[in-house]
């Protein structure tokens, strides 16, 4: 396999395309190290007509808590103090921590995306935003992809896309996301690997096997501070983070079947990723890189706690409120309804992915333990 990768890399660099395999039945394999894996936030000028979310009005909170003007001034003058943080976060009706217990506070009204365009997939099969939802989903509005594909589901973006921290010029590199990725790369915090097997043609292959793995080696940077290309990366021996799924390649675009994806998360924000009904679409770039999107459903409460885990820092830095995020995610969740309440427990989420050529090595004991990932049936509750 390593040898196949070697041939492949050279060929990719030469032609800017995937290399042809000499053995058509087996096909070649190509490895990649992921350099970007963050929520797909499509940023446009008109997608938040109500404006962007803001941090809570701290003065109003303190006043409502019965603080005197002097106390309020003292708190405002010391925004990094524990007293400030406690006074802001513990603002529930009975002094509850509103980030830990968001339902204790009323919905402040998170501003959500009103735009029509988003990255992502049509997860439920419907192409319109009609009032009748697809089976095992909740009614929700649909997006259109940047290339005009209708029926896109990305309610996570709809809920959080009007937060300044998640917005950026490129559509997906809000400063918090960039900060996380830069730290992950610079500090070698997490490595994800993609392996595509069974490539017999540079552009069109009916059957390919796509593996998404946790890597066990940190990413290495080059002299420009970018992730070094063509490194050798070992797949983690922990098979919980092995995801192998069938896919196909058409005109250089790889699309997988539906599967469940499980990955150990980054230590900064998300402890673990669990995408249900996931699918992956990756496009081979002229320089041999791949770019694309991962879409699927993620648990609402897990997403909430992952998002606001820094508490006061989240509310001040990200310019949003914990209860606002909580209610928005709950309100816009669109998958896996609770059989009893009918409320959806999962929310459609899309992540943008970028990856560069790498040699993906399976360690002894790894091969054969990976079973093809299965998709959790829609409506199934864990």
């Amino acid at each position, binding site marked *: 396999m*390593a040898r196949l990768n*070697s041939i492949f890399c050279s060929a990719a*660099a030469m032609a800017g395309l995937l290399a042809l395999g000499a053995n058509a039945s087996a096909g070649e394999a190509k490895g990649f190290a992921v350099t970007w894996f963050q929520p797909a936030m499509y940023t446009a000028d008109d997608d938040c007509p109500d404006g962007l979310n803001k941090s809570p009005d701290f003065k109003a909170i303190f006043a409502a808590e019965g603080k005197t003007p002097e106390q309020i001034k003292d708190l405002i003058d010391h925004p990094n103090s524990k007293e400030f943080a406690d006074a802001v976060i513990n603002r529930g009706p009975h002094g509850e921590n509103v980030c830990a217990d968001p339902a204790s506070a009323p919905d402040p009204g998170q501003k959500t995306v009103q735009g029509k365009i988003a990255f992502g997939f049509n997860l439920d099969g419907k192409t319109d935003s009609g009032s009748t939802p697809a089976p095992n989903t909740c009614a929700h509005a649909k997006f259109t992809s940047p290339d005009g594909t209708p029926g896109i589901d990305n309610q996570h973006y709809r809920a959080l896309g009007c937060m300044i921290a998640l917005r950026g010029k490129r559509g997906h590199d809000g400063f918090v996301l960039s900060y996380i990725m830069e730290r992950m790369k610079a500090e070698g915090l997490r490595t994800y690997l993609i392996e595509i097997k069974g490539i017999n043609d540079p552009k069109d292959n009916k059957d390919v096997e796509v593996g998404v793995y946790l890597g066990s080696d940190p990413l*290495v940077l*080059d002299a420009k501070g970018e992730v070094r290309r*063509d490194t*050798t990366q070992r797949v983690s021996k922990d098979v919980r983070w092995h995801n192998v799924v069938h896919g196909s390649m058409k005109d250089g675009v790889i699309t997988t079947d539906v599967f469940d994806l499980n990955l150990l998360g980054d230590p900064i924000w998300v402890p673990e990723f669990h995408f249900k009904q996931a699918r992956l679409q990756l496009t081979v770039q002229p320089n041999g890189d791949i770019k694309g999107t991962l879409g699927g459903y993620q648990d609402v409460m897990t997403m909430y706690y992952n998002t606001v885990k820094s508490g006061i820092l989240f509310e001040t830095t990200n310019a949003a409120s914990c209860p606002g995020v909580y209610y928005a995610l709950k309100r816009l969740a669109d998958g896996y309804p609770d059989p009893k309440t009918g409320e959806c427990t999962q929310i459609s989420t899309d992540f943008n992915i970028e990856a560069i050529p790498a*040699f993906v090595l399976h360690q002894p004991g790894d091969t054969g333990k990976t079973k093809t990932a299965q998709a959790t049936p829609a409506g199934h509750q864990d």
Partner: protein
Amino acid sequence: MNRVLKFGVAAAFVLGTLVSCGNNDEPQSSGGPIVVRRLTQEQYQTIIADIFGADIKIGGRFEPDLRKSGLLAIGAGEVSVTPAGFEQYDSMARGAAGQIVDEQHRDMLIGCKPASVKAPDETCAKSFYSKVGRLLYRRPLTADELNAQLAIADAATVKLGNFYTGLAMGLTGMLEAPQFLFRREVAEADPDNAGQQRLNAFSKATRLSFFLWNTTPDDELLTAAENGDLNSSRGLARQADRLMASPRLTAGARAFFNDMMGFDAFADLSKDTTIYPKFTNAVIADAQEQTLRTITDHLLVAKGDYRDLFTTRKTFMTPLLGTIYRVPVETHEGWEAHEFPADDPRAGLLTQISFLSLHSTPGRSSPTIRGKALREVLLCEKVPDPPGNVNFNLVQDTKNPQYRTARARLSAHAIQATCKGCHRLIDPMGLGLEQFDSLGEYRPTENETPIDASGELDGVKFTDAASLGRALHDNPATASCLVNRLYAYAAGRAAGKGEADWMKYLDTSFAADGYRLPALMHRIVTSEAFYRIAAPETAAVSSTKESAQ
């Protein structure tokens, strides 16, 4: 195995047997002049480590080396120590001496204890200076030298009130003495050849040790010098065999190839990292090490044919190098063996990152620089420097849509009569390596135009880098160049006119030995010619033209 090869192997065996008993078929040689060579930085550091231990740290900057006739080993005979350089030596000597006598090391390194720490102890000091002085000066200290050291130590001990501080003062003086910093050879009359001179036994020991181990003679070798063993062919062969059987032979071979390949230039190597972001200092270190490992593994471990270094697919790889060669490297840290497949564009030392990156400009590859290096480093030819008024704009403009490859740019550039001759000599060889960029990364196209890597080396056509390596392998000058360089490295000077038969003999023997480096080294160190000192009128060294023939 074909008949010629069988004969070669058989001949090598027979000659190898003969070599152990001395080179009876050795032709007459005039020898050369005695040479005084300054220790290199590596030699200085190795000697300190050998005598006092690797944990004695040497801080400071060494005097720059001088490359002469293709070798620093020859330049070492033409350098001195500047006042600023002496300050550095003094600083390094004080630092080393201080560590050697400190409480952590003194019991182990000094070998005796003074009667009183606060007073001179001549017996202990004498024992110490005699022991280390013999290793540092590569001969026993004379009585005057020893007495001078003792006087310094005594005076310093009395003044400073501490035996060890006084001892360090004397040791500092030894570490910055010319007897240590310079390998000064001494000649004596050759009793076996009336009217001729040879190196004395200690100078023989020094040549042997620095050539084979790149360090000072060890105790056994100095003892062999003292008791006259080195002046008998049997005794000399016994010591040569011992040194060559040691793992330290690798250090000696590495030092030679480090010099021959010009790896000292890596210290000044830079690349435009916006173009070559994979280039880092760690890559430089790994690239040098890769080549030296390839060489020593092939020549010393596998006992391979020297010429095969230019065709071998075998090498060693680190994870970092793997990113440039674009091959997977299974080991997470350190080195692993790697073999490129038969259809891979890489084969031999020419296609290793060390050669490719060292002989390129910071921002682009250069067929001219690479071709010149190939001629000068590996074929021992001298290529003139370009005229001062050459306009390089056309060659440097890699984005010129009219000339999309280096071949096209050079064709347009080298039309002037003053340039044409040299370019015709060196460019075709460099163009054979054009499928590798300035860093050494494979690229079959330039500006989306396929790179034509075909060319000709001294009448032998090649189609790519691998076949260029084959042409170099088959070129008679390749092996002769190594013989020439190796002997010059060992002797510290280029072979003189009076040594023509000797050099021819080495050429022939090298071929008969299957181009095996150990056999060549052994043949040199067990010869009489290697230690012969010429009368002044026959010792003229050819400095204007090096002959690899």
